[in-house]
């Protein structure tokens, strides 16, 4: 009976996806329908996903960490099934399965890397029983939906029992370390984080509950930085490390990916090789990617919540010809805009998005001068593009964008979701 329900759900889902793709962006509608028809769709599909699966979870850094890990895996010869950024709820995973079904049943894939939304992590854990998991951090995020960081930590704690082989956890995050300690997982656990000998203060990482990273046994991966850049240490070996996007938070995402690469990928690939390969990874879309239009360079910096905006504002210190902030309707409770320290921002040339008024109000109280307010981000970006692209001198335009604003901007430049600039 389950096989019949699965077949019907998959067929209907595939048809819906086909129709939706012809009329617009319906990336998860097929998955949604499949789950309505057969709630056990993902659990039933697991028997065909006959390869190890890595869950990548956390308040921030999921997409980047997953991208780095996919890069390292593919460089090691793996054929990776992975979900596009943003499709990380149950509907997204179901849609991924439907969209990749032919290749799945033909045995094309050797590894799955699934970015997973925290609210669905335990449920998906029960369906999939992933062999591996990375938990990047617990931060203040979407409290209108997730309420408090402690509840998010509990979501991760409840997912841990379903992981069968190895869990990589941020050792600077007290909530996560406590969750792992309390849960006593069957899987092995290792940690990544800021080297405790480093001068970097864990309190600056945007974590809700930060702690220093004790030097764990040899299985840990730790990073530090100096004037020459980042260094990563594992099993007492230390190497220079580069990541595609500026910022300590991206370096930590790299550390998380390296920690998982150590345990999940071909043991014949040396850790040093993974570190070198990480330097060749490309940023996840919207994470510091640069789009060139004539002589103008547009830096797209995605922010999704208070810690990601703060960390990104602090990371980008180089002067820019234009600075734009855009905040969209999807971010339901705008209160957190007032908790951000804007002192690193000299001025904002434009605020945009449906909730531009809230941005402008927060910036006004922070004493930051704002140029124009225009809720239409495409209008703002096209105006900059038309003004600067044909100038003889190079210019840099830094766009801090909420998710929908980033998608609209990429679309303006002709980039589809998931495609790199």
């Amino acid at each position: 009976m389950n096989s019949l329900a699965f077949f019907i759900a998959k067929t209907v889902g595939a048809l819906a996806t086909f129709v939706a793709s012809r009329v617009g962006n319906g990336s998860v509608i097929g998955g949604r329908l499949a789950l309505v028809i057969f709630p056990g769709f993902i659990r039933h599909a697991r028997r065909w996903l006959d390869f190890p699966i890595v869950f990548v979870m956390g308040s921030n850094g999921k997409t980047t960490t997953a991208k780095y890990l996919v890069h390292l895996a593919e460089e090691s010869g793996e054929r990776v099934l992975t979900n596009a950024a943003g499709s990380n709820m149950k509907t997204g995973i179901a849609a991924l399965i439907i969209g990749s079904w032919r290749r799945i049943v033909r045995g094309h894939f050797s590894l799955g890397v699934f970015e997973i939304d925290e609210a669905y992590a335990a449920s998906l854990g029960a369906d999939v029983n992933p062999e591996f998991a990375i938990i990047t951090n617990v931060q203040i995020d979407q409290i209108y939906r997730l309420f408090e960081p402690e509840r998010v930590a509990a979501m991760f704690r409840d997912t841990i029992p379903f992981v069968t082989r190895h869990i990589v956890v941020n050792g600077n995050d007290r909530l996560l370390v406590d969750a792992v300690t309390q849960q006593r997982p069957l899987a092995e656990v290792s940690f990544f984080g800021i080297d405790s000998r480093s001068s970097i203060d864990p309190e600056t990482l945007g974590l809700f509950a930060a702690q220093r990273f004790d030097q764990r046994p040899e299985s840990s991966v730790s990073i530090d930085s100096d004037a020459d850049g980042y260094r990563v240490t594992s099993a007492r070996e230390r190497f220079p490390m580069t990541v595609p996007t500026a910022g300590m938070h991206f370096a930590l995402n790299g550390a998380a990916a390296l920690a998982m690469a150590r345990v999940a990928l071909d043991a014949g690939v040396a850790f040093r090789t993974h570190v070198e390969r990480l330097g060749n990874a490309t940023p996840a879309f919207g994470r510091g990617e640069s789009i060139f239009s004539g002589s103008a360079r547009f830096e797209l910096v995605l922010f999704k919540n208070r810690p990601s905006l703060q960390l990104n504002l602090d990371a980008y210190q180089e002067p820019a010809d234009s600075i734009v902030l855009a905040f969209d309707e999807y971010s339901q409770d705008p209160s957190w805009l007032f908790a951000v320290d804007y002192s690193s921002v000299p001025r904002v040339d434009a605020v945009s998005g449906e909730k531009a008024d809230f941005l402008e109000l927060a910036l006004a109280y922070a004493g930051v001068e704002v140029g124009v307010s225009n809720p239409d981000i495409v209008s703002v970006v096209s105006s900059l593009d038309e003004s600067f692209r044909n100038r003889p001198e190079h210019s840099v335009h830094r766009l801090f964008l909420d998710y929908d604003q980033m998608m609209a901007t990429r679309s303006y430049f002709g980039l589809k979701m998931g495609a790199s600039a």
Partner: protein
Amino acid sequence: MTDVRIGVMFPSTFNLNADVANALVLQRRLELSGVETHIVPITGESSVDDAVVDALVIGSPSSSILLSPDLPRDGIASFVSTAFTSEIPILAISNGFHLLGQISNEDGETNAGLNLIPVTTTFGRTQHVTIGAQLETQWGRVVGVENHNARVELSSGDAFGRIVRGVGNAAGGIDGLCWGTLWATHLHGPVLALNPTLADALCARILDRRGLTFSRGDGLDHLDELANRARTHLEKSTAS
């Protein structure tokens, strides 16, 4: 020259939803009105001198911090009691409000509350989230965001506002409490940033205690225009 000090209770931890910024709002509005204003963090390390403030903002911590045995309750109670005695205006938001009274949860009464105000808060399973919550108050319509799982019963004092949209105290169709020099509400936003009339009323109260008159500065009109646009946006929200 007048020098006003706005105390902020534990600004890094009582700031789950940016309510510490209410102090920034007061500072900015007073400075634009010609009053030099300083924000003074009040923490476990604060000295007696730091305790000399003209107003106190108590933001909202997460539940684990509110209920934590490590929260220095005696120190907080002593400070807030002194503030009440000195008739210092106090603004308390959500869990910062709950902290000041009695607190119960599903297991019964706890020792988490300070018992300084005539309020009993009981935490339940249902989270009340209203984007664009609205109250009718003595300062007009007040708009914000509520996000809590509390039921609050007042044994005396007046409501901060009457519910137009939202849940508020989840008892009696009201939100918050006005008691002595305390104004307490569940509304985030921050509530003073989104509600200029309320913010000005608090500025006036702060200066009145010092024998001064609040005279609005020219720069406030721009802030108020932005706030009114943001309020209108929230009022149109149907999310809850």
